C-alpha cells in the first residue's frame, strides 16, 4: 500500500469541508444536540430518583460512546458516498488505486471526522454536565477501540451494499445504527432483553463496551475476557467487511455495474 493515494481519499473530504462549512456542521451539531438533550435528562433523573445510580455517567457516557460509534461509521460511508454522488467511480477505479488503499482512505476519513465529533461531545459533556470521562482511565482504550473498529466494519459493509445494490440503496444505510441499538444495550443491560435478542447482542461488539461501562460506573468490576472478546469480534468484523467489499467490487467489475454507474450519469 502507498500512502499518497490513501491521503488523496482523505484530502478530498478535507477540501470539501473547507469549501463548505455546511458539511462540517452535521459533524458537530447532531452530537452536540444529543449530549445536551441527554445531559439534561440525566440531570433530571438524578434529581428525582434516589437509586444511587449516577445517570450522568451511565446515560451520558452511553450516548457519547454510541454517537462516537455512529460518527465513525458515517465518516466512512460519507467518504464513499462522495464518489456515488459525484459519479466518480470510473475516475477513481480506473486509476492504479488498490482496493486496500481505497478502504484505508475511507477509514482515515472516518477516523478524522469522528474524532472531531468526539472532541465536541467531550467538551460539552465535561464542561456543562460534569461528566468525568477520564475516570474510566485505561478502559477508554478498549472501549474506543471496539467502537472504532465496529464503526469501520459497518461503514465498509454499508459501502459494499451500495456498490452492489446501486446508489438508490443509500437510504438503507442511515438506519443501520438505529436498528442495532436495541440489541447492544446502549441504555440497559443485555439481561433485560429476551433470549433471542440477547444472543444477537452477544455477537455485536459494542454490547461488551456498554456492559463494562455500566458495571464500572456502578462501582463494580468488569471482565477482561469479555472486553478482549469484544475487541476480537470487532477486528473479525473489520476483516469480514473488507473481504465482502472486495468480493462486491470484483462482482461490479465483472458484471459491468461499476462502468454502468458512470454511464447512467449521461442518460
Amino acid at each position, binding site marked *: 500500500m*502507498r500512502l*499518497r*493515494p490513501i*491521503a*488523496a481519499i482523505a*484530502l*478530498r473530504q478535507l*477540501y*470539501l469541508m473547507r*469549501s*463548505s462549512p455546511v458539511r462540517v456542521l452535521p459533524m458537530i451539531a447532531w452530537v452536540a444536540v444529543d449530549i445536551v438533550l441527554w445531559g439534561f435528562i440525566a440531570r433530571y433523573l438524578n434529581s428525582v430518583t434516589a437509586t444511587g445510580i449516577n445517570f450522568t455517567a451511565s446515560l451520558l457516557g452511553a450516548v457519547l460512546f454510541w454517537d462516537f460509534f455512529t460518527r465513525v461509521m458515517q465518516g466512512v460511508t460519507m467518504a464513499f458516498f*462522495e464518489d456515488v454522488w*459525484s*459519479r*466518480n*467511480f*470510473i*475516475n*477513481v*477505479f*480506473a*486509476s*492504479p*488505486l*488498490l482496493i486496500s488503499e481505497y478502504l484505508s482512505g475511507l477509514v482515515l476519513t472516518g477516523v478524522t471526522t469522528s474524532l472531531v465529533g468526539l472532541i465536541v461531545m467531550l467538551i460539552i459533556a465535561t464542561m456543562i454536565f460534569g461528566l468525568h470521562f477520564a475516570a474510566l482511565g485505561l478502559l477508554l482504550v478498549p472501549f474506543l477501540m471496539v467502537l472504532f473498529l465496529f464503526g469501520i466494519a459497518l461503514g465498509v459493509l454499508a459501502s459494499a451494499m451500495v456498490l452492489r445494490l446501486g446508489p438508490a440503496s443509500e437510504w438503507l444505510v442511515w438506519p443501520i445504527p438505529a436498528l442495532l441499538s436495541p440489541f447492544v444495550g446502549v441504555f440497559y443491560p443485555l439481561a433485560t432483553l429476551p433470549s433471542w435478542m440477547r444472543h444477537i447482542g452477544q455477537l455485536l461488539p459494542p454490547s461488551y463496551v456498554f456492559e463494562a461501562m455500566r458495571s464500572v460506573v456502578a462501582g463494580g468490576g468488569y471482565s477482561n475476557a469479555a472486553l478482549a472478546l469484544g475487541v476480537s469480534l470487532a477486528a473479525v468484523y473489520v476483516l469480514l467487511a473488507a473481504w465482502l467489499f472486495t468480493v462486491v467490487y*470484483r462482482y461490479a*467489475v*465483472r458484471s*459491468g455495474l*461499476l*462502468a454502468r454507474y*458512470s*454511464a447512467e*450519469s*449521461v442518460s
Partner: protein
Amino acid sequence: MPTPALKATRLCKRYGSLHAVDDVSFQVQHGEIVGLLGPNGAGKTTTINMVLGVLQPSSGSVEIEGIDIGRRRSEALAHTNFAAVYATLPGNLSVYQNLRFFGLLYDVAQLRARIELLLAQFDLLPLRDTRCGLLSSGEQTRLALAKALLNSPRLLLLDEPTASLDPSAADLIRGRIRAMASHGDCGILWTSHNMYEVEETCDRVLFVSHGKILLEGDPKTLPQHHGAASLEELFIRLAREPLADQRPAS
C-alpha cells in the same frame, strides 16, 4: 518488435446471449493515434472500459506496456490515463483540487510542478480555484485532458474528447493531442463520431460494429479502397450493413 502501448488480444464481453464485444484484437503503438469508430452501441466504450480495468472481459487479455491488466492491474494502470465525456471530474472540487486529488491517486512525482505546468498548458491558470461544476464544456474538457496527462501516460484513452466543444476549441485540443503523440512516448486510442476529426487526427482507424472490428486502415485511404467517397460515407454504410467476417488490412 517494441512492446506496444496497448495490446488487446481476442477480447470478448458477453452479457447473457448478447456479445457486446466479440473477439476483438488490436494494438496501439507509441506515437500512434488510433481511432475506434462505430455506431452507438457498437462496443467502443465497452472496449475502453475493459482497457481501463473497470470491466472484466469474459475472455481475452489486455496488456498495457506489456503488463497484463488482469494480473497486475495497478501496475498496468499506472501507465495509462483517460478522458471521457461520461466521466466528468467531481464538480464540487476546484480545478486545482481535482488535479491534486488525481495526481495523488496516480502517485505522480513532483506533483505541484506538474500541476502548474498542465494548468499553464491548458490555459487553466485563471480557473485554478473555480469549482469544476461551474466550468463551461470547453473548460471541463481542457481540465479532463490535463487530468489525463498528469501521470505522463504511455497509453491515453480519449472517449469522444471533443464531443461538446465548438469547432475552434476542438481544433486546439486536437492540435495538442497530435503534438503529444508526435513526441513518440504515448499511444492514443481515440473514439469520435466526427469523421473529419478522425481523418485529420488519426494514423489508423478501427471500424467496430456489433462488437466486432470490421475494417482497419489509414483513414485517408480507407474510403477509396472500399468504394466510398468519404470516411463518413464509409461509416454510414458499415453502420447500416455490417460486413460479415471481413477485416482486410488496407
